[in-house]
Each structure stands twice: as structure tokens, then as C-alpha cells.
């Protein structure tokens, strides 16, 4: 292998030629590992749903959670609207949509908290049955991810308010969006396997 | 390739395969063959040994040959030939192993199917694994024993489960192994072919006394087996309380962990119980021998003897022993 004189700025050309931004690829790989983590919890939940069915599953309230699902879907929409806004160069648009996203995320968590507490009142707890254990663990970890998403959205919001991001530089917003949409997709799956099927 | 090279290869191949056949037919690394299934497994094992020998000798041989033949000669600082590969060769050494493993998989499948064939009216034995003892139940005869008795040349169906953690029933001479998993009943069939006594070992780590969780299988003639079952049923009404206590002592697996000469027990996991009757009263002030023994059986953590691990003896004897059994056991120990 021979060497030729190239300035360091040229160093990463081969990678760039794939049109791949390394921050974005890193986040996608992180999401891949998240898929597997939830995959493990989901497999455990399904294993017990099929092999150790519990009457407690009947206590779930589909309408309430259905409403919550709408909220989360909407929050994904506001996130892409925010991204579109900053791509147009409108930082105010980004700030506005991010605030709505945070609000929607908070409402979703409130709804989940209400669901959990009412289930506990009906005697469905982490310790009440295999169903209780796997249900609260699975949905709880998703809720935790929504919470982290809210924090991430908040920090993105602050940076935007401080004048970060622009028409050309919106990678930070985009990768936050990837995470948020992933959490949304996980919920789409959980909603189906826990409440609908 | 020139003729000389082809001949060399053919000769090499013949020698190797011959060697493989030789090893497969002569070398025996397995214990005694005591069941129909063992014969099947060993045939498969010998086949694998033959193939393994060929591969092993071929590769290690080529390695040693290359190391000797192609070592750098002193003062030679040139490079070797710029060979980057050979599609033919790579195809060959991808295809041949693929072929071999497909054959092995197929044969293994056949053996697996054959060794699991169910025969009419087998002897049914329910096996329960417990820390750290095996319990064998004969539902038809309503007999329970810690020693496994089987009639020769008749299929046995084991229904294996566990009371606490995962154990694994392994009888090397039968070439079978099946985990005893709590909450599941696993079935396994075996047909003993040889009279005699063979060891039973627990093969899944099950706690501090895992190594001590052994038992014996006695393969005997149909008549002897029937007689034994009869005798066991009779044993329900013991002659003297001593006999009852002695049988309880091994039935509940005390013998797995404790030494007690009278019960021919030599466990080393827990303290020796020789002479316990005399000593028991002196351990805890204000507690007489009987109370001390009862409490030690019902609540093993109450007094853990110096130098022995705690948390080893199962805490559930209170539920498993009936009141009479507990009394009999304590009486028996006091008499020691």
C-alpha cells in the first residue's frame, strides 16, 4: 500500500462516498439493538400470553389505550413537521412543533399512568401473575423510552431556541426524530399484541 | 495436475479412509452398552469418530507437512509465489464438508427417530428430581423408591419432572440424558439390555450438593423385578420403627448429604449424624435432643453447624414429612 499526500480533511472520503452520515448510522445501529431488546421482552410476553393465559388480561381497557395510540401517532407527525420546518429554514416552526411533541408525549405518559393505577386498583400488579409481570415490564420499558424521548426533545428544543440548527444543519433534529418514530413503531406493535390480538 | 500428483492424492485418500475405518471399528471410548438406544448411539458415534479421524489427520497432517516442507531456508528473503486462490480448490473444500455434514445430519435424524420409537405397554416410571435426591414412582404398582429398578429387555417410559430447580437424569450406560424441569414433564423411553447395577448422575447444576445427587439403576430379570415391586409395596408396613426411620432417611435423601453408619450413608455435604442421639441435647442450651432434631429438620437454618454451608438443606421438609414420619425419623436419629 502506498501513501500520497492528502490533507487530513480529505481523510474520510471512502465512507462519505456511500452517502452515509456516521451520526445517523450510529443512531440506526442503536435502534437495531433497541429492536432486539424489545424483541426479547415481547417474546417473553407472547410466550406467556400463549402458554400461560391469564384472566387478568381481560381487565385491559382498549378505548383508553386507543386514544393514547392516536396521541403518540400524532406526536410522530409533529416531529416530522418540525424536521420539515427546519429544512425550510424556519427555526420557529421547529420550536413550535417540538413543544407540541413534548406536550403529546406527556399526555401519553399521563394516560399510561392512569391506566397503570386503575389496573393496580383492580388487583393487576407486577406480582399478581405472570401476565401482570410481563405486561407492566413491557409497557413500562416503553413508557421509559417515551420519557427519555421527551428529555431528548427538550434538549433539542433548547438548542433550537439557542439558535442551533438551520437549513443545512439539521442532523441533530433528524436523529432525534428517528428515535421518536422508533418508539412510536414499538407502540404500534405493543398495542396490537397486547390489546388487540 | 500431473499423474504422479494424482497417484499421491489417491494413495493419501485411501490411507486416510482406511485409518478412519480402523479407528471407527476398533477404538471404543464409551462405557458399557446397556440399552438398545446405547447400541444405536454408539454406532453413530463410531461413524463420527471415523469421519473425525480422517478430517483431523488430513488437516493436522497437511499442517505439519507444510510447516516442515515450506519453512524458510536460511538466507532466503524472497517471497513465495503470488497465489491469491483457486476457485476449483475452494469449491471442493466447500462442497465436501457440506456433503459430509448433510450425511451426518441425516443419519443423526434417523438414529434419533429410531431411539424414540414407542413400544406397547412399557414400564412407566415417574421420576422426580429434588435437591439432592432422585425419587422413582411406579404408578401401576403404587411404589416409590430412591433406587431405580428396571426389568431387562422391556421398554421403560420415564416421565421426568422436578420439585425445585432443574436437574438432569443421566444414565451413562444407557446413553440417555433428560433434564428434569419444574413445571414440565419430559418423556423418555429406554430399553435396558444388560443385567447389573449402573450409576445415575445429575447432569445439570442444581446447587451445593450437585455432585452428591447420584443414585443407582438395578436392571434385573422380569421375575426379580416383579418380586422387588411386591416387596416394596409390602414395605409400606414396617416391622420396627427403626426400619421405618431408616427407610425414611434414604427415601427423603438425607443419605445424600449426611453420614450415618446405620443407614449406610456417607454424605459429606452436611454434618455426620453418627452418635447424634447422644450429642443432640448438648448443642443448644435449653433445648433437648428431640426438640433440637425436630427444629433442625423443619428449619435447617435454625442451627447451622460450624464449617458447613447454610442454605443447602431444603427448607420444605415440614410440608413433605407427615407428622408420623417426622416422629419416626427423629426417634430413629435419637437411637443413633
Amino acid at each position, binding site marked *: 500500500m502506498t501513501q500520497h499526500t492528502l490533507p487530513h480533511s480529505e481523510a474520510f472520503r471512502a465512507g462519505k462516498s*456511500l452517502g452515509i452520515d456516521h451520526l445517523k*448510522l450510529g443512531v440506526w445501529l442503536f435502534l437495531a439493538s433497541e429492536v432486539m431488546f*424489545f424483541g426479547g421482552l415481547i*417474546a417473553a410476553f407472547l410466550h406467556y400470553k400463549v402458554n400461560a393465559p391469564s384472566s387478568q388480561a381481560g381487565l385491559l381497557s382498549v378505548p383508553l389505550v386507543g386514544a393514547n395510540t392516536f396521541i403518540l*401517532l400524532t406526536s410522530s407527525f409533529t416531529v416530522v*413537521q418540525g424536521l420539515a420546518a427546519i429544512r425550510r429554514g424556519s427555526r420557529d416552526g421547529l420550536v413550535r412543533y417540538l413543544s407540541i411533541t413534548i406536550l403529546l408525549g406527556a399526555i401519553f405518559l399521563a394516560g399510561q399512568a392512569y391506566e397503570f393505577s386503575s389496573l393496580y386498583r383492580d388487583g393487576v400488579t407486577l406480582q399478581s401473575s405472570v401476565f401482570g409481570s410481563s405486561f407492566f415490564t413491557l409497557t413500562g420499558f416503553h413508557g421509559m423510552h417515551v420519557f427519555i424521548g421527551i428529555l431528548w426533545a427538550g434538549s433539542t428544543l433548547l438548542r433550537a431556541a439557542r439558535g442551533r440548527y438551520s437549513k443545512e444543519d439539521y442532523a441533530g433534529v433528524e436523529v432525534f426524530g428517528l428515535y421518536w418514530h422508533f418508539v412510536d413503531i414499538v407502540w404500534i406493535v405493543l398495542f396490537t399484541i397486547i390489546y388487540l390480538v | 495436475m500431473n499423474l504422479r500428483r494424482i497417484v499421491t492424492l489417491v494413495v493419501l485418500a485411501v490411507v486416510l479412509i482406511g485409518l478412519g475405518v480402523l479407528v471407527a471399528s476398533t477404538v471404543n471410548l464409551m462405557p458399557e452398552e446397556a440399552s438398545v438406544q446405547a447400541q444405536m448411539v454408539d454406532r453413530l458415534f463410531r461413524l463420527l469418530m471415523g469421519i473425525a479421524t480422517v478430517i483431523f489427520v488430513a488437516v493436522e497432517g497437511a499442517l505439519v507437512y507444510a510447516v516442515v516442507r515450506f519453512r524458510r531456508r536460511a538466507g532466503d528473503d524472497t517471497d513465495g509465489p503470488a497465489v491469491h486462490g483457486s476457485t476449483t480448490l475452494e469449491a471442493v473444500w466447500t462442497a465436501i464438508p457440506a456433503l459430509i455434514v448433510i450425511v451426518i445430519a441425516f443419519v443423526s435424524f434417523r438414529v434419533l427417530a429410531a431411539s424414540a420409537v414407542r413400544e406397547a405397554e412399557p414400564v412407566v416410571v415417574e421420576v422426580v428430581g429434588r435437591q439432592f435426591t432422585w425419587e422413582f414412582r411406579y404408578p401401576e404398582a403404587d411404589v416409590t423408591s430412591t433406587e431405580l429398578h428396571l426389568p431387562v429387555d422391556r421398554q421403560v417410559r420415564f416421565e421426568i419432572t422436578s420439585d425445585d430447580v432443574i436437574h438432569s437424569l443421566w444414565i451413562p450406560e444407557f446413553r440417555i440424558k433428560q433434564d428434569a424441569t419444574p413445571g414440565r414433564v419430559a418423556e423418555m423411553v429406554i430399553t435396558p439390555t444388560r443385567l447389573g447395577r449402573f450409576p445415575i448422575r445429575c447432569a445439570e447444576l442444581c446447587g451445593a450438593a450437585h455432585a452428591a445427587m447420584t443414585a443407582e439403576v438395578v436392571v434385573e430379570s422380569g421375575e426379580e423385578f416383579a418380586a422387588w415391586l411386591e416387596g416394596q409395596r409390602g414395605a409400606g408396613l414396617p416391622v420396627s420403627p427403626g426400619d421405618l426411620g431408616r427407610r425414611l432417611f434414604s427415601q427423603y435423601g438425607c443419605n445424600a448429604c449426611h453420614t450415618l453408619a446405620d443407614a449406610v450413608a456417607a454424605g459429606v455435604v452436611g454434618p455426620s449424624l453418627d452418635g447424634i442421639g447422644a450429642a443432640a441435647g448438648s448443642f443448644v442450651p435449653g433445648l433437648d435432643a428431640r426438640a433440637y432434631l425436630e427444629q433442625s429438620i423443619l428449619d435447617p437454618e435454625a442451627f447451622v453447624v460450624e464449617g458447613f454451608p447454610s442454605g443447602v438443606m431444603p427448607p420444605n421438609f415440614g410440608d413433605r414429612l407427615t407428622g408420623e414420619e417426622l416422629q419416626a425419623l427423629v426417634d430413629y436419629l435419637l437411637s443413633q
Partner: protein
Amino acid sequence: MAADTRAPSTPRRTGYGLVYLVLAAVTALELWITTLGLAGSVRTPIFLALSFLKASLVAAFYMHLRSDSRTYLFVFILPVAMVVVFGLVMLIR
């Protein structure tokens, strides 16, 4: 790794809006089906298909997998496929 040089495109907002409407409609449809009291054997495949549709829409449009480099798609598909395999195996006791 697919060496794919297509640069990320900028989908129009209406694209996002349309996807949102579909997602909302499908969810409404799902909730409506729950009220029909269909047999599980009928319900389950319908729900699985619908949720797969929703998830794919979000991934393809909101996460730009449709227009972005295939490398990202590969990175996302492999684990999803593995989860499906693992999940199916775990259904069997």
C-alpha cells in the same frame, strides 16, 4: 453493505400529512374491528397485517427509509427479521 449513493430527498409536507391520515384511519379501523367480536383466528391475522402496514408507513416515510441509503434499511431489517424468528419460536412451549 449496499454501497448506495442516493442522497436523502426532502419529502413534501403533504406526504407527511397523507401518511398521518392513513395511520389515524387504520387505527380507527382497528378499534372498530375490536367491537365486532370476531373469532381470534380471523381477528389476529387482520390486526397483524394492519399493524405491519402502520409500522412500515412510519419507517418508510417518517424515518425516510424509502429514500435514504439502503444501508440504514439493512441495519433495521436484520434485527426485525431476527425478532420475528425468535418470537415465533417462543410461541411454541
